[in-house]
């Protein structure tokens, strides 16, 4: 009971409670709501009171058996203990009241000496009746302590002083040790800070402390201020990089996937190699890489939204670049855990291609950072003139131009090679050469900086095909690709060589330069050119002229069509039509039957054989 603590503050009197009618009304209103006094009669009140009694009664009865049966021994012990405690508390309170009362009486009795009226008021009735007032007094006593007492006091005070000094010494020693420990921690902290600085990181002041700057100065405003990590001292004095810890384990990586017909042919993530000297630095490096990856994705998204017309779409937190109908590049951000789930891909051509794209995206962002720096350090545009904006950056546009151009070059080269093989299978002369500017990524130029390489890829791409058709007639097909203005895609220009003189007579329009914006249009034009040049070959071989017997015999074109007739005298011996069909098959046919058909396979009779047979009437045609 020694530890029992009691408040001696008087209990608040319940008499002070406000029982006035307005207050009661207010409380009833608050308790029972606005409906309280509606249809309220004496009977209803009585009924309510009775109802309450009845409600309470069963509760009390129900509670009783619990007391008898359910209460465990432990609870009973607790109750007994509580009862004991209650009695003890009451005893203590009683004695405290007793003592306070007697002290009050004692002091009041003394004070009656000086202010009898006032002091008497605080005397208890019992004392007042038994002891006369002003019978107790007090005064200062001259007291001379004895030598014994003095020495005792001295010893006491000395002991206390010693104790106090000891305590102070202990405190100081502790403080000293603490400072020592702190100093060691600080030394370790600043040593590590210097270590980071010596590794080339920028240390800046931030929010009353120091911070390491790992972001990119030339990043867009959304990312510029993110790359600063305040350096805090840990428990043992080692550095904690606050911002970095925020996304530790949540690092994101840019994933590039190459889909052909919906199947993943390659999947690449930039693998960072670190040469970090410490754990802190590797953390910072990780944070920087994370920042760079997210920045690429952010910039790609920003750019992709402007390029929907070039088959670049953003959906499901990913960007899809549709290269052609069944080939697509998909770019998204994945977390570390998803990265581990990825299978290790084999080094197939598709995988190498995907890795190249992934590298290109990173290089292009660096290149754009350089552009921002260049722009920032160039002479400013005078105020009042429009300031050209650098955003969105040139990442997707450069890459997509390259991809589209590559794809279209492949299409073009396939088509041209098909045409030439057609002609060769028909025994005609035809070939082509192809050159691309700038060089493709497969064999990049050497001895140049990354900036000069990227600059090369930012100019319009150009592929030149020199096509020799039977005749021989030479045409140059120039394909330029640029997805920014003014081209907005690919453009095909077909230029005849200096002297396609033979074609003038039968197809004058082949002489002019033709420009097409779709590959399909170009195909139609090339088919027509082929038809015309083959027809011209037939005409050249045996043109309509007077023979030895004075007869006119030979081939003649009908109008300016792709048909020719073989005339002998006034009689038409044969009619042929040169057709290149849409599935790229060269046909020499009459009105109802096909005389010759070439689809690129060797071992068929040449066109000359077919034509010569036609010239001889009655000779069967294969």
């Amino acid at each position: 009971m020694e530890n029992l603590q009691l408040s001696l503050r008087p209990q608040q009197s319940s008499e002070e409670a406000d029982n006035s009618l307005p207050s009661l009304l207010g409380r009833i209103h608050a308790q029972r709501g606005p409906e309280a006094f509606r249809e309220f009669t004496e009977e209803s009140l009585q009924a309510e009171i009775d109802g309450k009694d009845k409600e309470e009664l069963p509760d009390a009865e129900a509670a009783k058996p619990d007391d008898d049966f359910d209460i465990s021994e432990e609870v009973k012990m607790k109750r007994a203990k509580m009862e004991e405690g209650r009695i003890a508390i009451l005893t203590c309170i009683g004695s405290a009241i007793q003592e306070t009362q007697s002290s009050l009486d004692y002091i009041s009795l003394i004070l009656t000496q000086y202010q009898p009226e006032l002091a008497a008021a605080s005397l208890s009735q019992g004392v007042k009746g038994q002891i006369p007032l002003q019978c107790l007094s007090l005064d200062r006593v001259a007291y001379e302590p004895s030598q014994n007492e003095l020495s005792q006091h001295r010893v006491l005070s000395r002991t206390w002083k010693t104790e106090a000094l000891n305590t102070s010494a202990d405190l100081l020693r502790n403080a000293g040790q603490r400072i020592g420990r702190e100093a060691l921690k600080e030394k370790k902290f600043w040593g590590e800070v210097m270590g980071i600085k010596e590794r080339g990181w920028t240390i800046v002041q931030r929010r009353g402390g120091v911070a390491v700057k790992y972001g990119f100065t030339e990043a867009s405003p959304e990312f510029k201020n993110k790359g600063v990590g305040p350096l805090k001292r840990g428990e043992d004095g080692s550095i904690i990089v606050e911002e970095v810890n925020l996304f530790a384990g949540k690092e994101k990586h840019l994933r590039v996937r190459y889909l052909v017909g919906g199947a993943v042919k390659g999947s690449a993530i930039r693998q960072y190699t670190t040469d970090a000297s410490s754990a802190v630095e590797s953390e910072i490096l990780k944070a920087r890489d994370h920042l760079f990856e997210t920045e690429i994705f952010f910039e790609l998204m920003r750019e992709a939204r402007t390029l929907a017309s070039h088959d670049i779409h953003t959906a499901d937190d990913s960007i899809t670049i549709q290269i052609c109908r069944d080939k697509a590049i998909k770019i998204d951000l994945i977390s570390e855990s998803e990265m581990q789930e990825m299978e290790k891909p084999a080094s197939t051509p598709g995988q190498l291609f995907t890795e190249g794209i992934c590298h290109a995206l990173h290089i292009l962002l660096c290149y754009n950072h350089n552009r921002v720096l260049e722009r920032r350090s160039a002479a400013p545009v005078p105020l009042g003139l429009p300031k050209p904006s650098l955003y969105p950056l040139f990442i997707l546009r450069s890459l997509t131009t390259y991809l589209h151009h590559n794809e279209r070059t492949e299409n073009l080269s396939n088509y041209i090679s098909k045409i030439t093989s057609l002609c060769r299978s028909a025994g005609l002369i035809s070939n082509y050469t192809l050159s691309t500017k700038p060089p493709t990524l497969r064999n990049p130029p050497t001895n140049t900086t990354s900036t000069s390489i990227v600059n090369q890829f930012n100019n319009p791409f150009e592929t030149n095909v020199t096509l020799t058709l039977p005749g021989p007639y030479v045409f140059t097909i120039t394909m330029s690709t640029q997805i920014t203005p003014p081209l907005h895609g690919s453009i095909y220009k077909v230029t005849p060589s200096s002297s396609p003189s033979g074609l003038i007579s039968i197809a004058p329009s082949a002489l002019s330069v033709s420009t097409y914006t779709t590959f399909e249009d170009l195909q139609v034009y090339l088919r027509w050119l082929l038809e015309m040049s083959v027809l011209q070959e037939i005409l050249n071989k045996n043109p309509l002229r007077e023979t030895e017997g004075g007869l006119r015999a030979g081939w003649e074109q009908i109008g300016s069509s792709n048909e020719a007739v073989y005339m002998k005298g006034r009689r038409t011996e044969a009619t042929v039509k040169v057709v290149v069909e849409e599935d790229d098959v060269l046909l020499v046919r009459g009105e109802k039957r096909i005389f010759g058909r070439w689809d690129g396979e060797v071992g068929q009779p040449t066109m000359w054989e077919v034509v010569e047979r036609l010239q001889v009437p009655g000779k069967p045609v294969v």
Partner: protein
Amino acid sequence: MAGVIPRRFQGPSLASPSPQTKATSTNIHVHVHIASPLTIIITKKTPKGIITTTRISNDPNKPHDPRAQHGSHTRPTMQELSLFAAVPHSRVPQVLRILSTWTQMKPQPILTHHLIYKPKRPRPPVGTVTNAQEMYHLQLVSTIDDEEEVKKEEDVKHDDYVNRQKWTLRFTDIPEGGRRNVTSRSVMMAEVEEGDVLAFMDALGYVFVSSYLTSGHTLIHNDLTLSLTELLLPPMGTSPHNCDPFPLTKHNRLEPSGTHVLQASVNVAKNSDVDCLTAGSKSLEDFARKVRGIVELEPGDRLGLDTRSKEFAS
């Protein structure tokens, strides 16, 4: 014509309203042809029959030439707002470092050559233009490439210096009067695209007075151009024909103690654009407040920046 190039910018030979004018200097016939409002072509015919042409242009649509003088976006006219401060030689590296940190870029070294010209004779008053007699100095400004780089080009002839350089003809007005927080003056520039620039100046009626070099560094921060430079004077007797600045050691500092001048400037496209002028001077004042204690930037002395010519060359 007068709407594009202010009257005071015109030389005596250009004063005539006729688009084609003939001016005669000693034994040389110069034919001035104004091809477009922004381009002037001068054809020079010497007694030996040699014809050379000079073309100057201030066409704003022309692509920016990286070799052009720093800070000169080729605009016909600009209003230049600026503040100046003197930086003692000992403090130059420190100030440069502070500014470099603030602008987050490396200081770009700059070396420019200035040739000062003044009019030969008073321009005859035309019409009722007031201040008809007021004449101004003109400057030919060019950025000099790094000495090392020039040396690499082995077949460079020293006497070819003037024609090798890319010159910009610059006219700077006297700063506007009145109590102002920043110095405000209009600047007009025209790039010399091809031809003999010295003959052109002669035909324009201007005569060479002196030359100097400014050497130092520039920094850019948003719209603010900061240049920390010092003035170098060529040795006595330098004329435009032998003004090759290399080696630089032959020059003397204008300020022997090596004091540099820090100029903070903002260009405004139109001097009637009050909003931009206010924004420009505000950004200058903000900058001055930021660097207070490091350098004390103040408006320049108006009369010290006077470009008027008090007397004419004989």
